């Protein structure tokens, strides 16, 4: 095989093919398994499915789509095995392409359709929902032309949905989100960033009721979210690990206290511009860490991941917070850092909090002091 792909001629490819001359075991015939009689692979169209898919896993998605249009054999092979597809690079015609691809690619588990210019319409999502029953991970971000019909279709068609990204789809209503959660109870990750209309306390209550496996939730810029919703979430989703409440300006300390008590696995919390948050919330976070450590010692079953606690906290613009309270949080969570290179405590706009230090930056400071003296 030549090194430069451009120079490879059709004659070269065909002669390589003939040299390979694969001999594969016969396919199952109706009524009997015939493993003895070999089937000669005569042409590119006869290439075994696994081999074709293995080759296609090395190329970009537009080539995979082109390959599925080469001949019936390849169309069926690819359709029976393709599990991951991304159409993110498409500038136009994404909708029509999806309408034609959905019936072919019925085994899709992961589909990424994030757009620069919103093109996706309800009929394409309905087609996906009708044909791709095994869909687990769907990214529809920035598809603001979609209406509630899309969510209804997904609810009926894709019950195994585990990850859904509908950030930027501001046309959805809260009822549609409630409807979706009634059916898609296996959701582990949900991104509602920018879905101002849809992310209401009512919707969050539904999520808390139905999606107990939820680990990741993004509610960025959803300023209709209030304490009632977040408290329902904290109660209903004990496995929550990542929660972004960026610009959820209505929430107060009660939300954070509920999360501190209800979600022991929380590793990342975003409270950007949540200006109602006071030291009370910080102390509750610190105390929850102490309580958690105590129960782990008692049960003697501490796992590495359970011990980590908060790894990332964003309290930018939370100007009501004072250094002692935030320092208490930093002291309780050893994975929270302020040292350069891996700082994870974000305090943008909080001049008074610049004195808060993680344990390792203090250690470095004191060892330098000893060196100097």
């Amino acid at each position, binding site marked *: 095989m030549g090194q430069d792909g451009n120079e490879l001629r059709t004659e070269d490819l065909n002669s390589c093919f003939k040299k390979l001359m694969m001999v594969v075991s016969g396919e199952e015939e109706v009524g009997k398994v015939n493993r003895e009689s070999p089937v000669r692979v005569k042409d590119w169209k006869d290439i075994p499915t696994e081999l074709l898919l293995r080759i296609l896993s090395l190329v970009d998605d537009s080539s995979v789509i082109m390959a599925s249009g080469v001949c019936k054999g390849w169309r069926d092979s690819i359709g029976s095995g393709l599990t991951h597809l991304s159409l993110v690079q498409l500038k136009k015609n994404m909708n029509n392409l999806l309408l034609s691809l959905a019936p072919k690619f019925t085994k899709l588990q992961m589909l990424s359709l994030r757009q620069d210019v919103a093109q996706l319409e309800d009929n394409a999502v309905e087609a996906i929902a009708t044909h791709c029953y095994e869909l687990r991970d769907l990214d529809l971000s920035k598809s603001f032309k979609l209406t509630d019909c899309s969510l209804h279709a997904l609810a009926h068609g894709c019950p195994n949905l585990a990850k859904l990204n509908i950030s930027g789809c501001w046309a959805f209503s809260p009822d549609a989100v409630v409807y979706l959660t009634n059916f898609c109870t296996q959701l582990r990750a949900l991104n509602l960033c920018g879905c101002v209309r849809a992310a209401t306390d009512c919707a969050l209550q539904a999520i808390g009721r139905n999606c107990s496996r939820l680990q990741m939730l993004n509610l960025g810029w959803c300023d209709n979210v209030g304490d009632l919703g977040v408290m329902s979430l904290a109660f209903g989703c004990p496995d929550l690990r990542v929660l972004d409440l960026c610009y959820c300006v209505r929430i107060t300390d009660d939300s954070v206290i509920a999360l501190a008590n209800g979600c022991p696995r929380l590793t990342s919390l975003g409270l950007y511009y949540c200006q109602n948050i006071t030291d009370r919330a910080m102390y509750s976070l610190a105390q929850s860490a102490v309580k958690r450590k105590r129960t782990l010692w008692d049960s003697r079953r501490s796992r590495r991941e359970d011990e980590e606690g908060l790894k990332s906290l964003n309290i*930018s613009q939370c100007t009501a917070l004072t250094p002692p309270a935030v320092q208490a949080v930093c002291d309780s969570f050893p994975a929270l850092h302020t040292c350069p290179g891996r700082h994870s405590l974000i305090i*943008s706009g909080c001049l008074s909090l*610049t004195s808060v230090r993680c344990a390792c930056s203090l250690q470095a400071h004191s060892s330098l002091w000893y060196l100097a003296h």
Partner: protein
Amino acid sequence: MAEIVGPRLYCCYRCRNHVSFHDDIISKTFQGRNGRAFLFSHAMNVTIGPKEDRNLLTGLHTVADISCADCNEVLGWKYERAYEASQKYKEGKFILEKAKIVKDDNW
């Protein structure tokens, strides 16, 4: 390539070397040598120069000029020591002048 949404970065205006995160801005109301400057809690890929005492608008400070690690353009300075109690919060922080940094293309 697929559009990847990531952290908002600032770059050196000359060579586009990543120097800081938008999330690390403590304050936007500082004065640099030639105009507005931002106070950052962290900076990366910068070389820290020799320390020197300077009398700034807010009093006497020990500062060290910071320059881009790739093209050596001076981008601002780092506060090493502040001599007045009210200015102590700046110690260890970085000033990057607005004119010397640009937003990375993605935002």
